[in-house]
């Protein structure tokens, strides 16, 4: 038989070929959905893989790594090395001391950079002190020029990463000058290594030097920051034995140390990114949800369009099962093709996302790590979502009576769950409302329930939309007539005709817009809170900082300057909550911000959760010692209230600090406590100053004074002076950068929704060719026909935008809840009027753009053909 129609199932392909544009639009919805899901998954995997690989490569072949129990980077006595070496099962142990400094030539350019994880210096150099005689047994140094370090521990020789050396124009055999606590020191460059293994650390800005030299330069004589352990081969190969060895080493060393698997250090950094990544995953799921809407919408329309054909098939003896099968086969083909293209597109998108994540995480993501299971998962998700979305349309198709084939025109399509779908919708919305606002779920399930509620809410909203279309149209009609002339009135009226289809499209648009508004509200709330905190808590006019610790005496000098009115010193110290008393918080570190109670109030203030507290009283209490102001995040995480105590590990054992207030603080992911510098000195032996906040006398320009002060003290004391305004701008910019990605995902949802509008309008034009021909024959111009279609799409945009605005505000609430639960930040809800208006404008613009092609198609309808159209 000379036919390509080899089987009944092949009919599905014919159906798709028959309507190429619709097929393409639907596939595009799947493509975008799958691409976003995959891109987010790849980006997350790649970020984690990169972070782990940097730490793994720096630790080399080590089986275990020992660090201080305080914060990674803190030092401990080198006596630990001998104790570790004596532990049975330890084959070799390698000492490391590391710390950060600057090239003397870079002091001028030195500045503080802010990241989501806290602050870091932008151009610092990591000194990595090793035992040159042994270290190559555990780490691979890929020597590209020169020689390895001589086997002595106190030579003033150094290895640099070639890329770094090239970048800084440093040559082999020459000296580099670095800053130390006591002044400047010179080191001879004896070799250049590749940016791999230990050379990957600090993004290549690393100097490898002999241990003793490093200890001297970093002022850490007799101290180490890390010990890498090689276990005997029998233990190294057996995970259980290695775990036992890890515990033995931990027991031998006792308090003050942590024994880790090398990758675990990467995990600590990765944890910082977790909230961000969860957010991305969630939004990618919402984008897919919008995609599912589009698919459902298209399939429903296709079924309506083909009602007579399906009736005919039924009449010829096609069973209901066969009809269902036909629709699902079509969905499967679309799902497979869309998912495969989506995977390709997703990999491209992942590259863009990775760059943004790298900027947020201040880590270089070396290679895109594409997990094979991620690929398979994306394909399955794409296919699954398509098929699930096609189930209801398939059910409708299945129920088409053979008698439909005998009707002269197809019956209009009803609402998804029948005439009472709005009741179901109201029920779903009520359920979502109760789950979100009324039922006090336990905190650990609140976020997942919140996320499910989002989907329930949007589904409910979509079911309610149809019942409102009639009323909405009546309200819009005069406006549309004013905008588009008499054709506008007709266009607006048209949305009532294929109302179920219109409702579905409006629903898709609504979800897209709700997503944008949800994201915008969250971003605006976050930014407003951050700005408020930045304006209030980050007070003062200037910040004076240095890569090497400063002494209090500099403050007195600054105060003697003619332009300076007030100076207040700040000291930062990473501290650890007492593990015994705070179970489940083992990996936590808190940033202890030590302020000077006498002077702090004159340059900055605290932002209290409860407005009854004030900075002056709080500072007076802090001055009494062993008292803390904790951030709302810490209060949440440790379930603390004013009057409770927080136990911290200190040099003198566990000390209980009394909580005297809860403040808003976004630094260090909100894991911040504020106390007095005197406490830091007493309990941690920390006397140095990390930063001076300076207030200028009236009439002095901060920018000019910053330059002048830096000029005056910069050379001798290696200080950098930054204006508070610049620093605030940096913090705000970083927050905006972190959220820009979410906006991209939100817009993806809108683009998918726009495809839905194109789809619906094309369908309407196709169906009404006869009528359009009639209108043209009555004298309607092509322009009027186009305006009629644009009015129809405009009406959809306005209604979708209005619904989107309403439900977007619900979404925002859930997102903020998510930020609080996952990220730890406590953010106040702000109603973003601008975002609301902007989103509505987006809805309108998108609907008009989406209406252009259908309008053009409609304007081209040929009168004679159209009026003969059956």
């Amino acid at each position, binding site marked *: 038989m000379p036919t390509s129609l*080899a089987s009944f199932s092949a009919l599905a392909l014919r159906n798709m070929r028959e309507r190429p544009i619709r097929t393409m639009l639907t596939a595009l919805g799947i493509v975008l959905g799958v691409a976003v899901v995959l891109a987010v998954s790849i980006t997350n995997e790649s970020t984690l893989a990169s972070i782990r690989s940097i730490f793994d490569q720096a630790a080399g072949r080590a089986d275990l790594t020992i660090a201080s129990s305080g914060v990674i980077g803190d030092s401990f006595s080198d006596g630990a090395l001998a104790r570790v070496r004596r532990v049975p099962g330890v084959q070799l142990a390698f000492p490391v001391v590391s710390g950060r400094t600057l090239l003397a030539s870079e002091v001028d350019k030195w500045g503080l950079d802010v990241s989501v994880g806290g602050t870091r210096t932008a151009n610092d150099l990591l000194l990595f002190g090793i035992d040159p005689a042994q270290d190559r047994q555990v780490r691979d140094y890929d020597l590209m020029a020169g020689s390895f370090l001589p086997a002595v521990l106190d030579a003033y020789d150094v290895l640099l990463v070639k890329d770094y050396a090239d970048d800084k124009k440093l040559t082999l055999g020459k000296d580099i000058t670095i800053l130390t606590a006591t002044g400047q020191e010179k080191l001879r460059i004896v070799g250049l290594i590749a940016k791999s293994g230990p050379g990957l650390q600090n993004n290549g800005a690393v100097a490898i030097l002999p241990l003793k030299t490093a200890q001297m330069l970093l002022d850490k004589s007799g101290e180490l920051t890390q010990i890498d352990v090689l276990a005997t081969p029998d233990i190294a190969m057996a995970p259980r034995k290695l775990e036992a060895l890890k515990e033995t080493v931990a027991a031998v060393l006792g308090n003050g140390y942590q024994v880790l698997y090398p990758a675990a250090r990467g995990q600590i950094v990765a944890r910082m990114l977790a909230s961000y990544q969860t957010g991305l995953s969630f939004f990618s799921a919402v984008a897919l949800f919008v995609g599912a809407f589009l698919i459902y919408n298209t399939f429903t329309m296709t079924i309506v369009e083909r009602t007579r054909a399906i009736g005919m098939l039924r009449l010829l003896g096609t069973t*209901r099962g066969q009809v269902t099968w036909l629709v699902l086969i079509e969905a499967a083909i679309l799902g497979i093709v869309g998912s495969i293209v989506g995977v390709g597109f997703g990999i491209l998108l992942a590259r863009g996302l990775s760059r943004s994540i790298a900027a947020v995480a201040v880590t270089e993501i070396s290679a895109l790590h594409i997990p094979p299971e991620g690929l398979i998962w994306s394909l399955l998700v794409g296919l699954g979502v398509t098929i699930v979305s096609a189930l209801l349309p398939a059910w409708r198709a299945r129920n088409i009576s053979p008698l439909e084939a*005998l009707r002269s025109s197809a019956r209009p399509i009803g609402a998804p769950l029948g005439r009472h779908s709005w009741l179901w919708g109201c029920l779903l919305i009520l359920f979502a409302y109760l789950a979100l606002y009324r039922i006090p779920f336990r905190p650990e399930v609140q976020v997942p329930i919140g996320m499910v509620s989002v989907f329930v809410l949007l589904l409910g909203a979509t079911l309610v939309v149809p019942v409102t279309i009639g009323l909405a149209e009546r309200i819009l009609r005069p406006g549309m007539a004013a905008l588009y002339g008499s054709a506008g009135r007709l266009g607006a009226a048209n949305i009532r005709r294929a109302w179920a289809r219109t409702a579905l499209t409006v629903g898709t648009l609504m979800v897209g817009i709700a997503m944008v508004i949800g994201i915008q509200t969250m971003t605006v709330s976050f930014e407003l809170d951050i700005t408020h905190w930045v304006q209030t808590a980050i007070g003062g006019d200037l910040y004076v900082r240095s890569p090497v610790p400063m002494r209090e005496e500099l403050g007195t000098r600054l105060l003697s300057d003619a332009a300076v009115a007030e100076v207040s010193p700040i000291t930062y110290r990473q501290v650890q909550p007492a593990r015994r008393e705070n179970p489940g918080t083992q990996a936590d570190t808190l940033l202890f911000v030590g302020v000077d109670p006498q002077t702090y109030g004159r340059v900055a203030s605290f932002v209290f959760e409860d407005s009854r507290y004030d900075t002056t009283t709080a500072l007076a209490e802090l001055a009494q010692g062993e008292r803390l102001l904790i951030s709302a995040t810490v209060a949440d995480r440790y379930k603390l209230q004013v009057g409770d105590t927080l136990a911290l590990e200190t040099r003198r054992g566990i000390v209980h600090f009394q909580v005297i207030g809860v403040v808003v603080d976004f630094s260090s992911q909100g894991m911040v406590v504020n106390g007095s510098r005197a406490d830091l000195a007493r309990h941690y032996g920390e006397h140095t100053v990390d930063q001076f906040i300076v207030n200028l006398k009236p009439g002095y320009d901060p920018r000019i004074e910053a330059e002048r002060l830096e000029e005056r003290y910069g050379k001798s004391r290696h200080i950098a002076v930054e204006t508070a305004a610049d620093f605030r701008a940096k913090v705000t910019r970083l927050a905006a950068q972190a959220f820009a990605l979410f906006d991209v995902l939100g817009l993806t949802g809108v683009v998918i929704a726009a495809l839905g509008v194109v789809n619906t309008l094309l369908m309407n034009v196709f169906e009404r060719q006869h009528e359009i021909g009639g209108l043209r024959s009555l004298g309607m111009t092509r322009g009027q026909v186009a305006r009629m279609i644009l009015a129809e799409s405009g009406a959809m945009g306005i209604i979708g935008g209005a619904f989107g605005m309403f439900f977007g505000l619900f979404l925002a609430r859930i997102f903020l809840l998510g930020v609080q639960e996952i990220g730890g930040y406590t953010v106040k809800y702000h109603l973003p009027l601008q975002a609301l208006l902007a989103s509505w404008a987006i809805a309108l613009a998108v609907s008009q753009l989406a209406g252009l092609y259908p309008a053009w198609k409609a304007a081209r309808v040929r009168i004679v053909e159209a009026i003969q159209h059956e």
Partner: protein
Amino acid sequence: MTILEARQVSKRYRMGEVTVHALDRVDFVVAKGEFVAIMGPSGSGKSTLLHLLGGLDNVSEGEITLAGHRLTQMDDHQVTLVRRRNVGFIFQFFNLLPMLTAEENIVLPLLIDGQNLRTYRDRVNHLLQLVGLADRRHHKPDQLSGGEQQRVAIARALVTNPAIVLADEPTGNLDSKTGEEILRLLRRSCDELQQTIVMVTHDARAASFADRVVFLMDGRIVGELHTTGNQSEDIRAIQRRLRESEQAAETGKP
């Protein structure tokens, strides 16, 4: 031999508050190889009867037996299978699938039934010859004239060698010359292939191609005429009488 039998078949619809009696205790029997026309004015129930006979709709009361299958005692799935293998349909608006060629439309019932198309090659060729479309087999419906599309529909109805072909106003959408060609074709399939045909029509000339004409009015069979050759005038006379008695009933005069 009886191929189709309807016994005391009634069909009622509810239209809002009102119950419409579309068919009222109709008895109707068709023998194998017979060509029967059902005539009657609009709303007389002729299309409803055709739908019930083809298993497209359910009876309110009564029994329908088609090729030995009691349709009225089967579920939807079983009726579908009976329809697939025993009934061919021809409609006024052809109802071809636009994306399929003439030949593909013809073999569609075989595809639906999962048949191996190769074994039907000769039959399909024969049917294409019979309907005179051998050279237009690869054309799609929009490339065919109305008459040609209806001939495709006839070939499609015959392809499964069904027990009965049900035709609903098959010439209603064609000019008189093309309509006559179609009727001759149906007549030929009856004479040459012994195909049983039941045709609904309001056209006396079309009905005259049948062996027997059954007259339906207000859901009841009100008359029957066995035709011998061209008796369209007799048919028209009966139609006229029926119309007059209907008007008399309405005005209350004998």
